[in-house]
């Protein structure tokens, strides 16, 4: 278990890696949600246009 302790820098090292993992996960989720929202928006517009015609 000593290898996980990182001497007296445990909190600094693990928090840095944890924050990095969270930021990358947020970037991935944002990109997916952005694509989903744009597609949804276009579908809604197209349906509204065709309903008007």
């Amino acid at each position, binding site marked *: 278990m000593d290898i996980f302790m*990182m001497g007296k820098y445990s909190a600094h*090292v693990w928090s840095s890696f944890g924050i990095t993992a969270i*930021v990358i996960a947020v*970037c991935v989720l944002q990109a997916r949600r952005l694509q989903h929202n*744009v*597609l949804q928006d276009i*579908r809604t517009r197209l349906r509204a246009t065709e*309903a008007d015609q």
Partner: protein
Amino acid sequence: MWNFLQKMASPPHFYGLSARMIPWLYATGLAAVVYGTVAGLFYAPVDEEMNDGFRIIYVHVPAAYISMAAYMVMAIGAGIGLIWRMKLAHAVAAAAAPLGAWFTFLALLTGSIWGRPMWGTWWEWGDPRLTSELLMLFLYFGYMALRAAIDDTVKADKASAVLALVGAVNVPIIHFSVEWWTSLHQGATLVREGGPGIHPDMLYPLLAMILGFTLLFGALLLARVRAEVLHRERRTRWVRDLVMPAGEVC
């Protein structure tokens, strides 16, 4: 060559090609990051001066590198869009900004966490490296705010491109700040005369992390550009056919 570039700049072609590239970029990027993390945290030797605290380098340096690379992607995209009026280039610039902001935030935060035990302070306003990196975060925010404030996409592209190009002068300032001025921040570790200044057992995980972050950034950038392209091309036939294939009942 010109034909190849023209084909690449075609939104439908880009949309299809990027869909095939993204899974590979995610997979290879993740593999490199996993290797770099395990090797950096558990197998790289302890640093003589900073002990285990130096291991923050494995996330801080790649994040800082991507923060600057994203700005260059944004500025080059903005420049190409401005000069050659290429819509896809503007889309790339717009997509790079939020990613650049996230990685700049990450570089600042991990740098601050690293600085506390090494320098005895979370932040030093007089330090040129720290303040120029913070300035880049504000440039990203300014770029995004400017785009959001202008409804007309063409006008937003032009105005934000000028800001991106003017702000590009900050990138070399960040890089050379530790050489030009006195700084708490250490000098260049990798790109310097005489080669990298760290042991190969520490170096290879770092290179793997930089490669991994670059590949992940590539995947994230393409994913965001795809959404940007769809939004810009929402009134075109190919997007209509893509979203509502023939025969689908509305």
